């Protein structure tokens, strides 16, 4: 299950809309081992394409350097599909290389199928070429989401 704060979800959707009709992409980093997305990092789609996305290789290097320095990992790796459903394509699966990440897809197509998130926003695990959809739980704060931090409580 992906537990994500509403403001982060909104940022991802806003980025997808802003870059439409090109695909948008980025990461939400979080503390290593926490599984908690915290830091929204929109990335440039170096492919600038409606059907493909790719992080620029220099940007990718800087991103990982920064995350390593902060003891962060890419908890969420997101991108948009601009004309098709929010489901991993064959290309997405062949490139997926973070088995511990939540692969989030947002569709900005005309007939988007809105779900409980208010958008066509879905999350998947992609491990060894196998796609598993997972529940998305949207919270206002992590304080009572049993995820830790934001900033403490959650007793019992």
């Amino acid at each position: 299950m992906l537990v994500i704060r509403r403001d982060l979800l909104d940022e991802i959707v806003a980025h997808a809309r802003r870059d439409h009709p090109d695909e948008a992409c980025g990461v939400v980093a979080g503390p290593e081992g926490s599984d908690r997305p915290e830091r929204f990092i929109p990335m440039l789609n170096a492919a600038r394409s409606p059907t493909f996305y790719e992080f620029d290789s220099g940007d990718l290097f800087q991103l990982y350097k920064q995350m390593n320095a902060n003891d962060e990992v890419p908890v969420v790796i997101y991108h948009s599909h601009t004309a098709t459903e929010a489901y991993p394509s064959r290309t997405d699966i062949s490139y997926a290389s973070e088995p511990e990440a939540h692969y989030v897809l947002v569709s900005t197509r005309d007939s988007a199928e809105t779900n409980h998130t208010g958008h066509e926003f879905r999350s998947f695990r992609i491990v060894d070429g196998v796609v598993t959809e997972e529940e998305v739980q949207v919270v206002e704060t992590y304080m009572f989401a049993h995820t830790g931090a934001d900033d403490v409580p959650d007793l019992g």
Partner: protein
Amino acid sequence: MAVTVSIPTILRTHTGGEKAVEAKGSTVAEVIEDLESRHSGLKDRLLKDGKLHRFVNIYVDDEDVRFAGGLEAPVKETSTLTILPAVAGGMR
């Protein structure tokens, strides 16, 4: 003389979970050969038909080797070699 090689999560099964390992070599190709001698299977994950795999980026210090001589890119003993999987995809 040893080069530090930073290993991405997905390849750590080949390094017993280590995030960084040491290797020897004066070019990227030599470093990969040396890695393979101790971390079997790694080479196949990085190269395809003797070329760097489309899905993999290798950096010598902060430079992508694709723009710095490819597998023949020189590596100094003070260098850090970073392996990162490309982050890409799309609706096709």
